[in-house]
């Protein structure tokens, strides 16, 4: 998977490294802003009330 991405990135090794860094940052951004906020309420730390939820 990662090898495939590496081979398909354009430019020389430096450009590829930079582009992969950008890709990693984009993935982390999506995880922190969309995926984790959705997943976190499924954990038990939110149950602090006595009536419901």
């Amino acid at each position, binding site marked *: *998977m990662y090898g495939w991405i590496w081979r398909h990135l354009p430019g020389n090794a430096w450009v590829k490294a930079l582009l992969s860094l950008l890709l990693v940052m984009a993935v982390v951004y999506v995880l922190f802003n969309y995926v*984790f906020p959705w997943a*976190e*309420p499924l954990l*038990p*730390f939110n*149950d602090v*009330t*006595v*009536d419901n939820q």
Partner: protein
Amino acid sequence: MRVVVRSVSELCITVGTVIVLFVVYVLFWTGVKADSVMSDQIDRLQEQWAHGAVRPTGEAAGPAESAPTPGPYETDKPFAIMYIPRLGFTWNKPVLEGTATKTLKKGLGHYAATAQLGQKGNFSVAGHRRTYGDPFKDFPRLRPGDAVVLTDGTTWFTYRIDKGPYKTLPTDIEVIDAVPRKSGYTREGRYLTLTTCDPEWGHSHRLIVWAHLDSTQPVEAGKPEALRR
């Protein structure tokens, strides 16, 4: 064969990295976010209060200093600041209306069905034990006699803890009754109930403290005794 092995190992590494990132998110990032959101809420409240719009109740505009029953709180909006000296001299958190998950991310949540601040009945508030700024992390350190101070911009309300921390089950909704049966109170009064989860990282139980309204004073009279140091 090599392709399969390589793909599986890459997948494992990816999943592991995502899990580590998720732990970082839950333990660290929610706290960072919550701290900034909570201080935003407090800033907003203080700005509102500074502009004289003490309660955004809409219809009840005008000089209503003697109105004993204020209008309903706006869901998901802050309306008070809570101080608990036992949890730290700088410990202060906004109190918002409602106990929805998204509300509790921004501060403490007032059970919408319970009494309003300082009114007859049981003013009940829930807060996170862990994650989202850990507001009630030190909840078990609360002791009878401790002060819980709240302000709504016009009045300081000083509650004194009478009983707790009391461990109970999540289904025990009686603890936020107007006169909670297990609190030892026998007649109607102006009470306060705080709830959070127990154990620290679990959700099998709830921790409760009960307090009664000890004194009130207008904000012009300065900070109440319990907050002076």
